[in-house]
């Protein structure tokens, strides 16, 4: 069996709990992400999603376990792994354009100034920012525009893996929708591998190829890997018509509502365990689609 492009193996994180003991946030998290795949991770606060993200970005070290990308263990941050932070993390003293050229220059140090500017402008245009706006400071932009800049900055660098840490968490629902569409559009034109944290079930279904579900912490685990069996290209309005949409959605709601709690705190003790793959597809069995039980997990 060949290893996936990104493979997370037996990741465990413990923090001192302040009383002399240790608190295990998550334990033996193991999963893989294929090249070009869009994977979302869903879970309640405190299950260690952000910690996993920081470990993938190389900003934090796990207590145990390894992250391998392209067969090499990840250690420290790298331009190969681009990050879009929840709070945009734009440098407020630079203009919008400079925030992107700053990154492009770091990625392509041999490029001429004109080349860098052209590349940055192109990616800003892809997220709908052009003209006078790109010379403004981030403080003069709305939250949605700032996150667009942050997304453009990440995509412009062609990272092998793009990490999105709740990128739309601080935005209002309408803005969030528009930027999700833009993210889908810009992602569709690339072979970009994306790993994204979110709280929002609908957002995850719209964007992801696969959703990883985490149980509650402490001793959180990546319990399930739900395939999104809705064909692309997807749009917000069309996917809700798809027969699989509510089946998948209900499964996710049910997991986050009750099962994440039931499964929580159980130390598996079995060591590395890949998450259970769940595939919900109502289009293959036409009759079942009409029936009442909406939740139908097909185990492999």
């Amino acid at each position: 069996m060949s290893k996936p492009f990104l493979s997370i193996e037996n990741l465990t994180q413990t923090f001192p709990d302040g009383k002399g003991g240790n608190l295990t946030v998550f334990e033996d998290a193991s999963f893989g992400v294929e090249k070009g795949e869009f994977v979302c991770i869903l879970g309640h606060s405190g299950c260690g999603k952000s910690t996993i993200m920081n470990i993938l970005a190389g900003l934090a070290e796990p207590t145990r376990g390894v992250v391998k990308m392209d067969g090499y263990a990840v250690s420290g941050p790298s331009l190969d792994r681009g990050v879009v932070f929840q709070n945009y993390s734009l440098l407020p003293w630079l203009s919008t354009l400079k925030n992107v050229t700053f990154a492009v220059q770091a990625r392509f140090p041999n490029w001429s100034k004109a080349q860098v500017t052209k590349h940055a402008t192109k990616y800003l245009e892809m997220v709908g920012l052009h003209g006078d706006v790109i010379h403004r400071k981030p403080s003069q932009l709305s939250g949605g525009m700032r996150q667009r800049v942050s997304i453009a900055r990440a995509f412009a660098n062609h990272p092998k893996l793009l990490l999105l840490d709740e990128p739309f968490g601080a935005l209002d629902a309408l803005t969030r929708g528009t930027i999700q569409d833009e993210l889908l559009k810009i992602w569709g034109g690339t072979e970009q591998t994306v790993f994204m944290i979110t709280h929002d079930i609908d957002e995850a279904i719209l964007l992801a190829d696969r959703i990883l579900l985490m149980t509650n912490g402490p001793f959180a685990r990546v319990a399930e890997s739900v395939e999104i069996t809705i064909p692309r290209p997807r749009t917000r309005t069309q996917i809700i018509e798809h027969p699989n949409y509510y089946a998948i959605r209900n499964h996710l709601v049910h997991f986050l509502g009750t099962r994440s709690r039931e499964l929580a705190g159980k130390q598996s003790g079995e060591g590395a365990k890949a998450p259970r793959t769940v595939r919900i597809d109502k289009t293959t069995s036409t009759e079942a689609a009409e029936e009442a039980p909406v939740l139908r997990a097909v185990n492999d």
Partner: protein
Amino acid sequence: MGSFSLNQRAAIWSLVILVVSLFVWEMSIPAQQAAGELTEYERLTGGGRPKAGVPPPSQVLVKAWEQLSNPFYDAGPNDKGIGIQIGYSIYRVLTGYSLAALVAIPLGFLIGMSPVAYKALNPFIQVLRPISPLAWMPLALFIIQDSEASAIFVIFICSIWPMLINTAFGVAGVRADWVNVARTHELGPLRTAFTVILPAAAPTIVTGMRISIGIAWLVIVAAEMLVGGTGIGYYVWNEWNNLDLTSVIFSILMIGVVGMALDAAFGVLQRAVAYVE
């Protein structure tokens, strides 16, 4: 008054306050009595000689016009133009201040970046900081053996602390997100320092620099009164020895004007490095 802007109204008020206080000052100086009105007894006891008193503003203005129309004359060690004296003071302040900046900003960076350096150096900073800079003067004179260099040293020692502390504080307070942006873009330590940490901490650092230049300008007057020779501080003291209060008042005003100009220069710098989060 409704048709005037806020600034115009403030300017009018400033002018009114100036005119009224100058008028009150002018009126409160008793006129010298003419010799003819004196009694025999008063003339015999020396009442006819002009009394030394606080000069009225009109005299100060005349003095100012006289001095400012020829600020750079040099008629020997005790008689130099106000421009030359202020020039000496500014030269000393800027020399001592620049040396302090060269030490304080890199050291502040180190302290801000490294908790160990912070803890190790903090006791020294806390003990040295509250020492009046003039208290160093005897030691400086003894060790350096040169009054000019001692004055510069005193400026150095008084302007180093606000810059050092503000730099350390600013650098330590740079948001982790911005440092993470530098890390995820694989910026080296030097590039991180110059492209992320320095601009992020610049407003705090420049605030420290502004406080320092203010303190340096306060201290130079006292330092020059001690070391003598040249400078605005020496000028004030020399005119006091000459009992020329008009010159004393004029030089006090000049100290204020130069101090304001120095502060304004740093105000411009502060606005240039400011950013909104």
